């Protein structure tokens, strides 16, 4: 499953890039994220509760950040297990582009693979839900970046 979109964040590119590496901001932005533990600069452990309608699954996962080409390009990979509900793995590449008006254009390409019962039973809903969750993440993220910028 492939997802892509772009979002305009009204802060400079460096701020956005830094935020992408900030576990606190990430935790606030990831929908349902309960805990994000930093093991190193690039290794994170996450606990996320995914709640969609009647479905509720708690995922434990590891995220590896890859600051490839600061401040323009950033990627991450991750995998998580949701017990009986199944598991997920995937990654995303984020590209940032400074706009003339001082804003930053964030473009992402994500790919996710879902396994286990979630994939078996929810395949007709996964694509739309993943799209929504990704959008939610980036809108949360944009908000968090602005809050940080303004504080």
């Amino acid at each position: 499953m492939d997802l892509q979109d772009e979002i305009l964040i009204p802060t400079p590119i460096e701020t956005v890039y830094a935020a992408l590496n900030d576990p606190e901001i990430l935790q606030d932005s990831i929908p349902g994220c309960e805990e994000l533990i930093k093991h190193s600069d690039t290794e994170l452990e996450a606990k996320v509760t995914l709640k969609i309608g009647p479905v509720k699954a708690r995922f434990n996962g590891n995220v590896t950040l890859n600051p490839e080409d600061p401040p323009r390009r950033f990627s991450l990979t991750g995998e998580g297990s949701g017990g009986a509900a199944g598991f997920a793995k995937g990654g995303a590449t984020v590209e940032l582009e400074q706009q003339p008006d001082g804003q930053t254009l964030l473009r992402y390409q994500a790919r996710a693979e879902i396994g286990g019962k979630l994939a078996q039973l929810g395949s007709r809903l996964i694509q739309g839900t993943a799209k929504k969750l990704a959008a939610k993440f980036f809108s949360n993220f944009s908000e968090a970046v602005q809050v940080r910028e303004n504080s």
Partner: protein
Amino acid sequence: MIPAAFEYHRPSDIEAALGLLQTHGDEARVLAGGHSLIPMMKLRMAAIEHLIDLRDIAGLRDIRIDGTTIRIGAMVTQADLITHDGLARTAPILREAALQIADPQVRYMGTVGGNVANGDPGNDMPGLMQALDAVFTLAGPDGDRDVAARDFYESAYMTAREDDEILTGIRFDATAGGYAYEKQKRKIGDYATAAAAVLITREGGCVKSASVAMTNLADTPIWSRAAAEALLGSSCDADAIRAATTAALADIDPTEDNRGPVEFKRHVAGIIISRAIARAWSRA
């Protein structure tokens, strides 16, 4: 398939039900017919600690027709819709759609409220409610509020209903003119591969009003304003139907699943929408 343990509540009024929702928050869920929720619980995809059964709450099973206003309680079943004479006269599209939902046993249990509140894009009633421009009544800690069906759905399973609210009923105007609920499915009882609800009134030889909505062609039900506009004032000839269908197709966003790839769904959606319009017009 055995669900995880939960506590069962059977309040006798809506206040008590709302109180339970407030007390237990996210851990609680209301149960109407249960035919979406219980399978999910059995598959252990839904872990619910408090199940609040609405069956004893008075008034939720009523169907009331006051002049041209129709009110349907959340616990009215699909079977009730099918057998209700008043509805057959005032909004026959309900019966036509309800007969295409699931199978007889499920229709005895499955409720209108559950079907619209669940937020599953596969459910048929939400699409129908778009076409009818229905209003949903949500009871909450601060009293009742109304939400238009066309504003209710956000994405799959995500709706305007807050966790501490209960959808208690729906309201819409009696329909006039022609109607059709057209649904293609893999087999009887299945979710739609594509479905369309169409209402049309006629004046002279022309379309006076139209409403076109679709089921399972996006992660929410879709009401297509543009499709209706394409029909307005036309004689509902082949060109008008083609234009309306093209407009409707611009509003959908189907995803691939076991029913087929996106390209197929778009094609079928076009056929189903055209057929629904033609049939509604023929009855107008």
